[in-house]
């Protein structure tokens, strides 16, 4: 149905060359994966293809016709459809309304709802994308919302589908479903560009892989001729391996949770039910579970932002009486939040201001009581930038401009510099590329060696099995007893995540 040729595209932002002479072709019925670390230029390239940016050099041909640069309309007309990583749906409207929104003219005198509904139902049937047209988007699961996004693109007649990190928000089961749907679509003649940095997904879904690094194409391989290690090396430019935990004797208990319960939202069951958990020094305890089973409440509890309704927290045997973030910081807690942008950093403030946000009230970064000592703060921040290799254009720049990996390094730097005795790491590597994941894991393992007790909340079992010492599963607000990672396996934990708490290894 459609053939796409990107020819020699170059795009510069000031002194930065985001895309340097990139060429890429996609044939009908083919899945081409675009692999690269954060900041390698994947998103820029797709924005050029979709007409959001105008390329400085190069052109884009679809079925032999060159697209006019900078025109989103032309790209859509030519059959390019993009499913963004962050969904662009209105939660208070139905599926059908969302799909018609922006597609059908507002100035039409006759309503096209009937025809639209029919077209939508046909599309959903043809591509096996099961969604009810009248369901409210707000009531849908993440996987279903993604289906709506795909349907929206198909409704507009897309023949070339671009998926930007589509699995970042999906559970493993939802990912499998998505892949089945994609394979079905390809079989019907769609072309797909699959953007990701997750190697096993790329190996599972793509026909060919184009690897980008620092804005240039560093490799084009046929998927069946390659493997995980080769792709990783191409992507990062050197051999990377994720660190693994060496065995280590755990020390004294540092944080103990005793019968903690937290009420759910109105009319919902309890978010946490009688949770008991002990984290000792020199160990990483992982909490596995499907998102939404009480992880965010557990994380809120240990960040000091959400007090428990009953039960108690003991820190080195002492009962915690005052639940607030400052108190937890002063007790020596380090916290890596799930949402880097929303909770972890103040995007509008500078990098150095974010780096000192937790230590500002504690260490001598001020004079005369309340005056900030700029020189001392900048010096401290500069040391952290250097030590944690935070790549930035100077410390005065806004934190929101950092890439995901560098923002996570900022948070790690801020957290670890206080030498915490306990660290809450909530999804610390979500959305990060291989190099950054290895870095984060290494830092957590170093903190463990230095004597910290770490609670790792994760949905990624690979992560848990590579760095955790003990693991518990959270399901419907209940936390299982702790299992030694060496005495269990992915199958048992997977079954427990699905609610079968009596599963055996």
């Amino acid at each position, binding site marked *: 149905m459609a053939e796409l040729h990107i020819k020699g595209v170059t795009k510069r*932002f*000031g002194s930065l060359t985001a895309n340097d002479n990139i060429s890429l072709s996609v044939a009908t019925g083919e899945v081409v994966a675009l692999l690269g670390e954060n900041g390698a230029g994947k998103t820029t390239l797709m924005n050029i293809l979709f007409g959001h940016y105008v390329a400085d050099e190069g052109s884009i041909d679809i079925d032999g016709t060159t697209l006019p640069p*900078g*025109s989103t*309309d032309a790209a859509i007309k030519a059959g390019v459809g993009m499913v963004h990583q962050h969904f662009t749906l209105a939660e208070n409207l139905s599926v059908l309304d969302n799909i018609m929104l922006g597609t059908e003219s507002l100035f039409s005198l006759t309503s096209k709802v009937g025809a639209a509904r029919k077209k939508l139902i046909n599309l959903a049937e043809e591509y096996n994308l099961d969604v009810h047209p009248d369901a409210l988007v707000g009531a849908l699961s993440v996987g279903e919302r993604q289906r709506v996004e795909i349907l929206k693109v198909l409704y507009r007649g897309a023949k070339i589908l671009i998926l930007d990190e589509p699995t970042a928000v999906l559970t493993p089961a939802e990912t499998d479903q998505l892949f089945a749907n994609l394979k079905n679509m390809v079989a019907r003649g769609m072309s797909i560009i699959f953007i990701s940095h997750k190697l096993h997904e790329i190996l599972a879904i793509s026909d060919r892989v184009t690897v980008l690094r620092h804005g240039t194409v560093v490799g084009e391989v046929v998927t069946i001729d390659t493997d995980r290690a080769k792709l990783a090396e191409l992507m990062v430019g050197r051999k990377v391996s994720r660190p693994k935990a060496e065995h280590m004797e755990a020390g004294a208990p540092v944080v103990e949770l005793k019968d903690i319960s937290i009420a759910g939202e109105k009319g919902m069951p309890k978010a946490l039910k009688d949770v008991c958990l002990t984290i000792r020094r020199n160990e990483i305890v992982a909490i596995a579970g499907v998102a939404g089973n009480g992880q965010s409440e557990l994380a809120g509890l240990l*960040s000091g*932002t959400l007090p428990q309704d009953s039960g108690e927290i003991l820190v080195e045997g002492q009962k915690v009486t005052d639940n*607030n*973030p*400052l108190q937890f*910081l002063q007790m020596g807690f380090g*916290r890596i*939040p799930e949402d880097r942008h*929303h*909770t*972890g*950093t*103040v*995007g*509008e*403030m500078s990098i150095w*201001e974010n780096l000192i*946000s*937790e230590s*500002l*009230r504690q260490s001598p970064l*001020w004079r005369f009581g*309340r*005056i*900030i000592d*700029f020189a001392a703060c900048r010096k401290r921040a500069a040391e952290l930038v250097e030590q944690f290799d935070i790549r930035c254009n100077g410390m005065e720049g806004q934190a929101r401009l950092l890439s995901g990996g560098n923002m996570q390094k900022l948070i790690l730097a801020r957290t670890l510099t206080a030498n915490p005795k306990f660290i809450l790491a909530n999804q610390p590597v979500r959305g990060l590329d291989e190099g950054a994941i290895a870095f984060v894991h290494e830092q957590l393992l170093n903190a463990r060696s230095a004597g910290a007790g770490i609670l790792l909340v994760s949905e990624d079992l690979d992560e848990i099995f590579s760095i955790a010492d003990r693991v518990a599963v959270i399901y419907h607000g209940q936390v299982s007893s702790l299992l030694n990672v060496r005495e269990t396996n992915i199958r048992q934990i997977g079954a427990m995540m699905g609610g079968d708490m009596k599963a055996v290894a």
Partner: protein
Amino acid sequence: MQLEPREHISAWRVILAPLMAIVVAFIICSGLIIWTGESVIDAYGFLFIGGFGSKFALSETLNRATPLIFTGLAAAVAFRAKFWNIGAEGQLYFGALAATILGTGVVTMPSFLMIPFLFLAGAMAGGLALIGPVLLKSTLKVDEVVTTLLLNFVILLFVNYLLEGPLKDPMSMGWPQAASIIDQGVLPALLPRTRLHIGFLVAISAAVMIWALMRYTIWGYEIRAVGANPTAARFSGISINRTVMLVAILSGGLAGMAGITETTGTKGYLTLDLSPGFGYSGIAVAMLANLHPIGVVLSAIFLAGIYVGSDSMSRAVNIPTYIADVMVALSVLSVLVSLMLVQYRVRWK
């Protein structure tokens, strides 16, 4: 038409954009002047001469700017923390009440103590007027826009009652006005034979102090963090309620000081027409200054100049003084648009 965020925001753009915006507002306004049949050059000429053209005009403008600097700072501080204090008008009257109650003879001190004492009392009264809305916000999440706005009318009616009753000056021949501030409390004139008083200098030093507070202190850091991202601010250990309380007391206190300069400086006694909406104009002043404390001084002088100048313009040519309100409104709107254009570039397709 599409907006695209700029990667780099240059400093000269930030400074130049509002100035260009004001030029644009004046150009739009000339349309209205042409409509009245008068000469645009004459109108703006008289406006400028009336606002800035003589020692007297300038002193009147700076006198008018004084309360606007205070209310502008009140809005700027509060809005920086995303605390939407629309109640500066009421807080101003609370400050004026404090001046009236304490400054009409109950307390007598020499000038160099009396004047700071009255400023402090006015600031405390203004801050007090915001305690209710803050507590309602932090405990029950009541929207402060509604409470502070409505409190303006409550306070104004309360002042009305006091001026008709307990605080009515028996020597006022029946007019609803309070007794005069005693001589020790009256702000000395800055220039002889003008109404410009030292309140103007107090306002400027307040602006410098607020600027330094926001930039150099931990309080300022916390206020900016809470305004920019309350979730992250709370996560990093900043108490939101305490910060908002601090902001409210600062904001209310600054607005209360506007009440002090008007009663003890410009008027000499409290009446119900003490403020022609200084509290509300303060919001325009703050927006025009992009919430920058030093910018507030400049934008307050600019606004005051337009108001004062438009009086003499309307006397000289046949244009109603309402044109001043149109100019201020257009300036605020175009400055807001220009600030957006500093952050984003427009792409036409």
